[in-house]
């Protein structure tokens, strides 16, 4: 039994899609999952198994068709759009397969974009300092005022990681974060994520195809045919 408090809990989560009013396609079936603070989790599974869907439900970007999602003992399936946005902004950090940096903003500005959603000028000042620290930490201290177009893929993804961490979230959700990177950059990024998890004490959930990456996590879950099985 973990000594860390429960952060997220999926209870009997089912997700179905109705296509052309005929087919009811169930992606997730009665998923039960508990995530503790500071835990690192990998979710693996074949393409189309619903990994990203589960991640989106965790990230409050999507809602389950059935079942409940608890965040810090609060059932978030009943929350308003704005409340969910606040949780997403303050407690969750997203990392996508593509970095999705805004080409019109500098590296530092990209990192600060999440702060604008709920922060005031004091928050921005503090966040700017934190961004500078984090960017330096990930080796991009020289590139703070660079435009994203001048960065390599690995560097861009590291900026995305810093952006995800800027609001000091409780959980980092990474959807195939190394999918667009070469092997070296992928390894380097994963090491960075694990290190940052230790330093920031955030929960880390990674959706990946990579066994190597999965092995770096505390727990590994495999998703197939809508069922989630713990493997490690």
């Amino acid at each position, binding site marked *: 039994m973990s000594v860390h408090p429960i952060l997220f809990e999926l209870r009997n989560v089912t997700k179905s899609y109705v296509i*052309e009013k005929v087919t009811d396609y169930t992606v997730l079936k009665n998923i039960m999952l508990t995530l503790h603070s500071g835990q690192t989790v990998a979710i693996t599974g074949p393409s189309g198994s619903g990994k*990203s*869907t589960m991640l*989106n439900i965790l*990230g409050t*970007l*999507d809602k389950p068709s059935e079942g409940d999602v608890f965040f810090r003992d609060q059932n978030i399936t009943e929350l308003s*759009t*704005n409340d969910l*946005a*606040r*949780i*997403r*902004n*303050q407690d*969750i950090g*997203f990392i*996508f397969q*593509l970095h*999705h940096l*805004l*080409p*019109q*903003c500098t590296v*530092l*500005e990209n990192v*600060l*974009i*999440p*702060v*604008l*959603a*709920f922060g005031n*000028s004091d928050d*921005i000042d503090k966040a*700017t300092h934190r961004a500078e620290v984090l960017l330096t930490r990930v080796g991009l201290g020289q590139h703070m005022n660079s435009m994203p177009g001048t960065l390599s893929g690995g560097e861009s993804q590291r900026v995305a990681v810093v*952006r995800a961490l800027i*609001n000091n979230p409780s959980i980092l959700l990474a959807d195939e974060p190394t999918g*667009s990177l070469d092997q070296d950059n992928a390894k380097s990024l994963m090491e960075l994520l694990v290190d940052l998890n230790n330093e920031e004490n955030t929960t880390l959930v990674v959706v990946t195809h990579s066994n190597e990456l999965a092995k770096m996590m505390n727990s590994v879950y495999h998703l197939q045919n809508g069922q989630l099985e713990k493997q490690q």
Partner: protein
Amino acid sequence: MNFFKLIVNNFKYFLHSQHIPMALGTMITSGVLIGALIVGDSVKESLVNITYNRLGNVTHAIDSGDRYFRYQLADEIENELEIPIAPVLKLNGFAIKDGGEQRVNQAQILGIDKRFWNLAPNYPNFSEPAQNTVLINEKLANQLDLHIDDEFLLRVKSIDYFPVDAPFALDIQHTASIRVKVAGIVSDNQLGRFNLQANQTSPFNIFVNYNQLATLVDIPDKCNTLLFNLNLRNSISFNELSGSLKFNFNFADASLSLSRDSGSKEVILKSDRIFLEPVIGDLLEQSGLENQQYFTYFVNALKTSTHSTPYSFVSSLDTDASIKIKNDEIVINSWLARDLNVSKGDSLTLDYFIVGTNRDLILESSVFKIHSIIGMPQAQRALKLLPDFPGLTESENCRDWDPGIPIDLDMIRDKDEVYWDEYHGTPKAFINLDKAQELWGNRFGNMTAVKFTNDKYTLSLIENKILDKSTPSLFGINIKPVLDEGLAASKNGVDFGELFLSLSFFIIAASLILTGLLYVFSLEQRKGETGLYLALGYRPIQIKLLFFFEFFITAVIGVLLGSGVGILYDLFILKALGSIWIGAVGTSDLILFLKPATILNGIGISLLLVVISIFIELKRQTIVPATRLQRRGQPYKISKLNPKIILYLSAALFVGVIIILFSSDPGRGKQAYGAFFGGGSMLLLMGHLLFYYFITQKGKSPNSHVQSIFKLAFSNTGRTRSKSIAITAILAIGVFLVITVGANRHGTLVHSDLRSSGTGGFEYWFTTTSPVLQDLNSIDGKDYIGIDTRNDSVLFLTMRHNIIDDASCLNLNMVKNPSIIGINANVLDSLQAFTFIKTLDRQHKTNPWLTLNKRYGDNIIPAVADETVLVWGLGKAVGDTLYYTSENGQELKVLIVGSLAGSVFQGNILISEDNFVSNYPSIGGYRIFLADIPVSLTKQFELNVPRLLMDHGIEWMPAYERLAQFHTIENTYLSIFLILGALGLLLGSIGLGIVILRNILERRAELALFTALGFTLDKIKKLVIIEHVILLISGLIIGTFSALFAMMPVFFTPGSQVPYLTVILIVLALPLLGTLWIYLFTQRELLKPLLPALKND
């Protein structure tokens, strides 16, 4: 970092790719919108400007028409009030140049003195024209190519105070001519276009020396117009002016004269108009003056069964005379008793003419019993009461008589000459006043003289007592606030702002769609960004505001640029209205006028429209889950109609079209237009349903394998069917409406031979400046105008005309009182001429013209007008009342009892001739005519009538051409709609290019797959181009065929003016330009590498 910085970053980054195209789109939309609104202001301001030009500094005016008052009246009011006043003798006349080769038949002749120019803006350096010189306005100078020192012949009708329709009025009007030299040309802003009528078209003005003109037309020291400027002295109110007019108004201004008989000391009141107007009787009663009233008449014969005395005056007896007679008794003088060999108690018959409504002479007789015989001295006392009958009383001898009735001079005997020499016009007989009034009373008056016998009465006492009870308006002298009325007419006239917004509907809609597409396209391109913001915890409202402010900057810049484009668009429209579209406004004097409030309104409306389109797309995006936004090529929603329902609906529509085709005769006229337009709309809907069916069913059939690029392209149209059908529908509806509305013009020959048509079945319409007094339907009348008197099928509809303001669509001003036509309703009823749209009185539905003869109450006159005039010119409807003032100052309630379908009468209201003559007795004769001429006589008509009525200032044209003049305006509007609509369609075709960009963007991965599968780039381009050309051509075919069906009645209408060339150009230009855009946009977008799109997915 803050929101503002983020917005600025975004704006800068997407400046070229998004904001410049969006700003240009916004600029076009707002430009057209603002331009259309400014056109309204410009036309309105131009009309106001024209009002100031035509009135100068004149604020108030008296225009008494055919009634003349003293020229000195102006001096008296001027001295009293110390305001600028100009007396004017305003007449109609002709200007003839080069021996008649060039002439203007309807010129405004203005007899002025130097005071006239004090009322002109900028006080031009003109003075009173010298004898035999004139000043002319620019319009006349241009028309006759006249320059300073050129000479031309000026011709005007002689004036007679005596109403031309009154008994004994002469039926021949003499003209007076002078050769004049042009001393100067008066520009429009120097009062050159002086006109008291609210109309944007300038009259042909000739400014003549007042004294010379007044002398020429034989009314020295008289005028009929006074112009005032009350603005110069604000302390003078309208009431003070009216008070001054009343104070200075005297008997001479009312054509009355008082004289004291030197012998008897009696005072006699007579009128220059022979008959003392009915109002005089009322005034005498109100004044309390003791008086004796008399009626003297000229009779054809006084006769017994054996004897006859020709042409004599008969008068009424003193009512307080010692002789009292009954209505059937007569007193004769001793000369007559001897001549007829009669004595007391004998019967005596009087033969005399009375004048009918249309100047026809009716011979009537009355029999009297001789009551007594008086001596000649006693009879001679009545001589002083004899009015001045024209052509009679001033004659030296009987054989010089030339009255307005036929006289057989052979009947005049020597003893009659002797009587005339000895006793002159001494009445030969006397009857009771009541009887005289019963026999000879007419609308011009019921007495010919009044005698005041009280020796205490002075001339001034009598005059003052009567005038105290009267107002000048009782004698047709009214002051009108012409400036205020003119400004109100110009400001309330046709709203060209609204009109051009409607006419520019397509171009505005197209540019709005284009702009909307640009904004939507830009937002769609940044769907991923929206998703990212959502994932990062931004609330939807924050994202909306983020994009909103960024795009709002663009919208503001676009709209500001658009206001400049709007001014250019306005200039283009004004230039076109002054030249190729002059038919819509009738003047080239349009000026650009920029009203800040209107421009701000336009900016506001444009911004609002753009903001709405931004919000709609933002709302659409942020309600979609963020997870989906990051995936490309996924349509938001897929829905589909049941194919069976589509087929059933299509079949039902097709049946409807077939029913219309076989049940409606396309040549049936207006009724067919509605039916076929409905049929065309059904075809339009059916075309889209079938198109939808085909693109959605493609692929369902087991044999529908993709065998060619074309088939693949066709299949693709079904994949995004909502977008496909939207593109096709927009194009088809655009083509349908632009062609059906724009090409649906009035033909000039549309059944104009039918009595029910707008010409009433008449061949010719003609008007004259000076009235024609002859009955053109009589043998003499036909002879007068050179028409074969033996042909009975010739018919003239002769009409009286009180020219006030033109309320036709040719006048842009909103007039209050249209000109009045007095018409013979019985003739029109018997012909069943013209078509009524609405009638007030259901009982008269089958004989609507007869409602004009019906009595609706005191001072209520039934009238008929064109529906167009009522609705657009006056803003009235059947059942409404218009208020006029009769010649004697009474308020007339003109009740609209019916409305006509578009007719040659447009611009006027029609009342019965009886009502006309009783309320406007001084406006004599006929000035408007419709002629029904058999084909065999048309050449004779066209050769003789214009020539023989030349001195009447005839303007003639085939009746259908008169109708066509009104249609010209409507047709010009339709041309404008067609041209602007076509521009809109062409502009809208750019939208097709933007749709292509969106499609390619959404389907980059799919197209990249084709590349991966070995398709060449050219083949992919071909695929995309064919796919969209299918939509373009489908829309065009559906729209064009539906429009052609809807227009069938136009094709079957003789003389219809379908602008085939414009329609063909639209039908050709649209696919050509559309294909060009498709090619260019496809080329542009597919130049970017496609394969990365595969990696992204």
